[in-house]
């Protein structure tokens, strides 16, 4: 088998953090791959909830969009979207919310709205979607975010979703019921909040990655957690399962769709 890519490793590292039976509110892309990999390996009874209203979904191939038919066909139950947000997420029934973003700051606050100013943006991003309320209500959130020159930043252009705000207990003093981001999975390793200040610190590296690479990727002076671990390389089973999932997905998405004529 070829050496794993950083994307694969991120996905596998995220999957390992999920436990069997946990209720996950899943976004499209890397989070969806991670959750389904967990389901196909060590967590067969993980409950996957997509914001399109599909509950207990077991897709054969990864969805390209949150509303793919595959998600509905393999779901235990499909509810109208308002119910997903009010009766499930807001009701506190989600264990783990998976978030991505364009920018993250040192306290895990996220931006997926604009780069530049809101009224005259340099880059208009897709916007909030479900994120603000996932960030508020999920018992904990996982953030998956690749390191780019502008992703781990000293200051967000716009706060779309709240992490730990200014840190040092600021979040706990709000009415947000969820615990906030407990881990950030990036393509160099993972960050976790400092227990007191909630500043994100380097907690583990992919083996073969040095601290300097992490420091270079992060736009604030990155500190190290008390213990910086090494993330085990993918096992053959993890990698095979993930690659088979991606292969099935590619094949399915490449199948030409006859025009409905």
């Amino acid at each position: 088998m070829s050496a794993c890519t950083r994307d694969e490793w991120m996905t596998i590292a995220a999957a390992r953090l999920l436990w069997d039976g946990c209720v996950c509110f899943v976004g499209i892309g890397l989070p969806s791959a991670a959750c389904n990999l967990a389901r196909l390996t060590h967590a067969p009874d993980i409950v996957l909830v997509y914001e399109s209203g599909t509950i207990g979904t077991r897709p054969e191939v990864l969805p390209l969009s949150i509303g793919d038919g595959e998600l509905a066909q393999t779901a235990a139950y499909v509810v109208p979207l308002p119910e997903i947000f009010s009766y499930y997420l807001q009701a506190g029934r989600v264990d783990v919310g998976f978030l991505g973003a364009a920018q993250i700051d040192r306290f895990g606050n996220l931006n997926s709205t604009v780069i530049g100013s809101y009224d005259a943006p340099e880059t208009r991003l897709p916007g909030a979607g479900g994120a603000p309320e996932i960030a508020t209500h999920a018992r904990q959130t996982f953030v998956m975010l690749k390191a780019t020159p502008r992703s781990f930043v000293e200051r967000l252009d716009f706060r779309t979703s709240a992490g730990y705000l200014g840190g040092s207990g600021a979040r706990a003093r709000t009415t947000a019921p969820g615990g906030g981001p407990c881990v950030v999975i990036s393509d160099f390793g993972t960050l976790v909040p400092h227990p007191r200040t909630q500043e994100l610190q380097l907690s583990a590296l992919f083996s073969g990655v040095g601290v300097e690479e992490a420091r270079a990727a992060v736009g604030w002076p990155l500190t190290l957690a008390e213990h910086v671990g090494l993330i085990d390389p993918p096992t053959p089973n993890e990698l095979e399962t993930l690659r088979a999932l991606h292969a099935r997905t590619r094949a399915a998405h490449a199948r030409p769709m006859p025009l409905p004529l």
Partner: protein
Amino acid sequence: MSARFLSLADAVAEHVQDGDCVALEGFTHLIPFAAGHEIIRQRRHDLHLVRMTPDLVYDQMIGMGCARKLTFSWGGNPGVGSLHRLRDAVERRWPHPLQLDEHSHAGMAAAFCAGAARLPFGVLRGYLDTDLPAHNSNIRRVQCPFTGESLAAVPAINPDVTILHAQCADRQGNVALHGIVGAAREAALAAKSLLVTVEEIVESLSPAMNGMLLPHWVVDAVAHCPGGAYPSYAQGYYERDNAFYRDWDAIARDREVFLAWMGEHVLNSADHRGFLGSLLERAA
């Protein structure tokens, strides 16, 4: 009052006026593409477009100058990336400025629910410690009269017209839909006027029991329009054309390419059948 059966062109001509607040709903499923194209063909403009997830059909409507305002919560090409026409309108005001009324999904869901229930506002525990309320005066706070707690409030959404695509209607105009339904029901019931395109018109629907149905007396017009959700999908009828979504990225990136494509495939085709035919020709 019962639903009338109209051609899509007649239905749009009758129910969508310049300046209207128009919601084409469907949460990445059953997206009323055919209806959006017909609105473009009829050169409607100054519209206030509403949709949780403006995707390709809104990118097209915005790029063709139909919209003055957009109420939305996530505006991207799902699984692909940006909506370049939406970005061009927001970032560079082309073809003209687009006013944004921006929400989260939870906020828009609450606003549609309030609209359907004819309440003036919806309540949620939302928008907490985000920058959205600072940029949208449609996000306010309300106090619980029992606990004193402060919660987020959004104004009800009551479109002049909501347009859906659904699997089928019966001869009375009862409309049945299934699969991922998003906020389709709420958007439908919140509207002053409801237009539905359907894959199929059947003699009678099987009893819905607790399924999802829009009774004929809440439906204003039904237009038979097979393939009307293409390139999105209709559960049980056809799948999503993922390649179309991917290819759209390159088409929409460039104003000229976009305009040429819209001219060739939408404006030059008489109806949705013509649109699908033009794609077939190009592929051949």
